[in-house]
């Protein structure tokens, strides 16, 4: 959904986010909705400025979100509050799951298919009865024991279903059993949220959903930064699917991204496991040895992802140009193949072991922002070289001089061999380019002035680095260097600094015809025969003509327009503002209600139309059904009543048969580090979580008495992200001059701590000292029959700039969500005491 579409919501639940403080621009649309009568709910362990603006604040213990949302799912099912016409038509609620499926309720908190030795799941038993369903995520390969040909069943008949919902293995019945014990009483016992507040929220959300009303969820890293973060988001998706809050005005699950273009760096990814616009990165241990095998494995037989070969071949043409030909599989062999998890967390551990010899750090400050900061520093200290680009000195660039491991005497500058290259970089206004915001809106920004001195844009740096690498390897005969030799790298430059054209890069991302270099107008023109090149199929249409950069468009809707603001910048794909918006119309193609109309079937013109670009095949009639006698593939296998076109069955997946690494339904697990035992299952924590305990990265056992308090971290309005940009600016630095820990008056009284006293926070990874902020914003929780205290600390401080303070991430451990490998910053455990850290003796240094 578009950010401004929040204003159309009748209920907004902000959870896992302090939206008013950290996304103030987006929060104005929440305020607009509230002014129109919407109910605003904030579910959060702390009482923040978002809580103060909300109609209802529900306090919950960090990391218990799935218990809360699972309770809401139970309420919807057992109180019969779901939007039946919507869910029966558009979700897989009636689909029958394989007989071999065993729910976590019957497995002590573990689903069928779990491999104890590897800590991972095989997903055979989660499949639809009789057919295998590839996922819509970038990797379409299904982790089952034998996948040979099983997805072909999708082209023979619709998924097995029981519209009466009586079949014991239909999704509806499975969900009822799975969430039966997530009662309001259980929600209170697990989360600490009083039952009455929980029920008030259940009523507010369900009363504001249905034909006439819609609701939205907004979340940020308060949901993602857990060892089960993906499943928290899944729980919200189930709620929205049941309530009909998907594809409709004011409905959706809005991910509030943490940086201005994090969405863009996911689309055109800096991620290790994806190619641009969500194509899978080949894997050395999957059937990906050749392009033919790769396409055979990864092409989904039904739904939109059946088009994958077009996007893949056109990407290779964009990257390798005339070198990419059918006879050499379009240079597919040049693509690196994954051998394992090469995301940030494991690569940090690999750095510590000396595997990594050099690192580029652009737009990031991992000594402050990455978990287990001192282990990160030990890793940096083992590099041969480190390149840091930023517009002010960062803790990452001078860890060798001022870092914690140097201050403690563990290492000295003389003993750190890392050669650091610190490059000054241009700020946003000193370069041109695009930013992609949280709602897929790609907006161009012009350069205002030249950067000072030797500062250069990141684009300048990467372009000229690429040129130099091509020079270095120009005469090589090594096969591995052929990828660099073949890479297309021709971008026009201008000015005395030879700045490359960002517009030229965007034209390439948009795509063009190879023969005559004409810009593609739409992704429907992309071919799999090598006649088109496209750097990112979802962005196709953003630059449909050499002189038509749609990301520059700046025509907002006026009072008489439909409010989609389609003349303002470009939202991928195809300038669609609300994804799956065919779901805004009923089975006959008419809006569920006039109040919530968005797109609809125009019977006279035989096409979909409305207030947004339809996210559907324009001419597919709502009553069209696949002709199964013809073994339909791709979009031909989806009917006019299947809005979720990226899914193989066109349905909103309440139950996920494949793609998730930790179960088909969200299940409450305690955080990896927790002061209480799991009230719902014998299984304490996510059995598939990626845990890497080792010296320097020790984990706390559940209920470890040495670390009795829940510890969480967060940002501050006044200091941006890792803090450097605002810590070096006096007028923002003075607004938050030093680090602190927030604790409740109850805990302060227990520990004899007064406001502004020095305190020491300690975990198995490290210790920091900060001043105490004793505040009623923090409160103890009654959970698992005992009182649990929670403390919190901003993670935005370091030793650089005017506002100094301890690095909170010194306290955190490296472990990851099984789906994303993302770290946990929101729910760990710690010790807290009054006092200061001992200062190292001078003799210890050196």
């Amino acid at each position, binding site marked *: 959904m578009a950010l401004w579409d929040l204003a159309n919501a009748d209920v907004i639940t902000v959870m896992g986010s302090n939206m008013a403080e950290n996304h103030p621009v987006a929060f104005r649309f929440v305020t607009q909705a509230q002014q129109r009568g919407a109910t605003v709910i904030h579910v959060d362990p702390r009482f923040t400025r978002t809580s103060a603006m909300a109609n209802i604040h529900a306090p919950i213990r960090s990391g218990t979100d799935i218990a809360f949302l699972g309770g809401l799912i139970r309420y919807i099912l057992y109180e019969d509050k779901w939007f039946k016409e919507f869910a029966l038509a558009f979700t897989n609620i009636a689909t029958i799951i394989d007989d071999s499926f065993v729910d976590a309720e019957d497995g002590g908190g573990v689903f069928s298919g779990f491999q104890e030795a590897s800590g991972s799941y095989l997903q055979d038993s989660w499949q639809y009865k009789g057919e295998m369903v590839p996922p819509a995520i970038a990797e379409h390969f299904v982790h089952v024991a034998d996948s040979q040909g099983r997805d072909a069943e999708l082209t023979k008949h619709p998924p097995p279903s029981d519209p009466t919902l009586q079949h014991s293995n239909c999704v509806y019945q499975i969900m009822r059993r799975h969430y039966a014990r997530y009662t309001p009483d259980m929600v209170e016992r697990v989360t600490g949220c009083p039952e009455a507040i929980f029920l008030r929220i259940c009523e507010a959300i369900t009363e504001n959903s249905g034909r006439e009303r819609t609701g939205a969820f907004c979340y940020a890293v308060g949901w993602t930064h857990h060892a089960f973060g993906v499943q928290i988001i899944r729980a919200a998706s189930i709620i929205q699917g049941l309530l009909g809050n998907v594809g409709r005005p004011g409905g959706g699950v809005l991910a509030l991204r943490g940086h201005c273009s994090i969405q863009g760096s996911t689309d055109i990814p800096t991620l290790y496991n994806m190619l641009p616009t969500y194509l899978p990165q080949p894997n050395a241990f999957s059937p990906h040895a050749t392009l033919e095998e790769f396409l055979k494995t990864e092409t989904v037989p039904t739904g939109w992802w059946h088009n994958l070969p077009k996007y893949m071949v056109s990407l290779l043409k964009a990257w390798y140009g005339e070198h990419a030909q059918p006879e050499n599989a379009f240079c597919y062999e040049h693509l690196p193949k*994954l*051998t394992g998890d090469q995301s940030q967390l494991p690569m940090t551990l*690999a750095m510590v072991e000396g*595997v990594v010899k050099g690192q580029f750090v652009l737009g990031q400050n991992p000594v402050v922002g990455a978990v287990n900061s001192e282990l990160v520093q030990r890793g940096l200290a083992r590099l041969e070289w480190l390149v840091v680009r930023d517009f002010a000195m960062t803790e990452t660039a001078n860890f060798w001089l001022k870092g914690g491991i140097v201050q403690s005497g563990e290492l000295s500058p003389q003993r750190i061999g890392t050669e650091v290259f610190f490059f000054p970089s241009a700020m946003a206004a000193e370069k041109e380019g695009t930013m992609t915001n949280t709602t897929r809106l790609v907006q161009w920004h012009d350069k205002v002035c030249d950067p000072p001195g030797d500062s250069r844009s990141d684009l300048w740096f990467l372009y000229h680095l690429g040129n130099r690498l091509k020079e270095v390897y120009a005469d090589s005969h090594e096969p591995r260097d052929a990828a660099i030799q073949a890479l297309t790298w021709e971008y026009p430059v201008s000015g005395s600094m030879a700045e490359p054209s960002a517009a030229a890069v965007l034209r390439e991302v948009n795509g063009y015809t190879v023969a005559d270099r004409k810009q593609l107008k739409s992704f429907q023109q992309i071919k799999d025969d090598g006649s088109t090149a496209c750097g990112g199929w979802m962005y196709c249409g953003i630059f449909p003509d050499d002189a038509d950069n749609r990301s520059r468009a700046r025509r907002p809707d006026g009072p008489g327009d439909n409010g989609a603001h389609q003349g303002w910048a470009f939202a991928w794909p195809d300038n669609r503002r609300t994804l799956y918006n065919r779901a805004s119309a009923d089975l006959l193609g008419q809006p569920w209600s006039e109040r919530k109309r968005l797109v609809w079937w125009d019977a006279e013109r035989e096409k979909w139309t409305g207030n947004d670009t339809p996210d559907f095949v324009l001419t597919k009639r709502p009553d069209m059904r696949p002709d199964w006698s013809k073994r339909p593939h791709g979009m031909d296998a989806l009917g006019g009543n299947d809005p979720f076109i990226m899914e193989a069955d066109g349905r909103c997946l309440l139950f996920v048969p494949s793609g998730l690494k930790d179960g088909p339904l969200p299940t409450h697990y305690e955080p990896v580090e927790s002061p209480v035992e799991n009230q719902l299952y014998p299984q304490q924590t996510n059995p598939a979580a990626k*845990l890497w305990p080792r010296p320097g990265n020790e984990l706390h056992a559940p209920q470890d008495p040495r670390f009795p308090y829940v510890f969480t971290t967060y940002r501050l309005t006044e200091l941006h992200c890792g803090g450097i940009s605002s810590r070096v600016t006096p007028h923002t630095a003075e607004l938050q001059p030093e680090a602190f820990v927030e604790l409740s008056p109850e805990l302060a009284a227990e520990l004899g701590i007064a406001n502004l006293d020095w305190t020491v926070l300690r975990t198995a990874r490290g210790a920091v000292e900060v001043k105490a902020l004793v505040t009623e914003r923090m409160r103890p929780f009654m959970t698992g029959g005992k009182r649990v205290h929670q403390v919190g600390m901003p993670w935005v401080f370091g030793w650089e700039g005017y506002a100094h303070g301890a690095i909170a991430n010194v306290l955190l451990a490296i472990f990851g969500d099984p789906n994303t490998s993302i770290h946990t910053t929101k729910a760990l455990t710690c010790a807290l005491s009054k006092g200061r850290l001992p200062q190292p003796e001078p003799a210890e240094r050196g």
Partner: protein
Amino acid sequence: MVDTGEALAAIDRLLVERPEKVGHDFSEATRRLVALREHCVSRWRETQSEADRRNLERVNAAISVIVGGQFPLGSVPWPTIGKVRDDLSDLVVR
């Protein structure tokens, strides 16, 4: 001449014990291979010989696979780790 035996022995222990869940069990093999690589790098920089360059490439390839086993996407690739061990068995680094 450098003894590659320590790296091979560490891989052999992995192949016997087959640890799956805890990547730290791979650390010894990783560290041994990294040490071997450091020597190969020094040697190649000194001699610039084709043989030394190929030795370095073989050790680099082995590190890729072992680190992939240490931090697997799905199952640990035991058959490939076995091949790595076989490939290194006749490695002679002076």
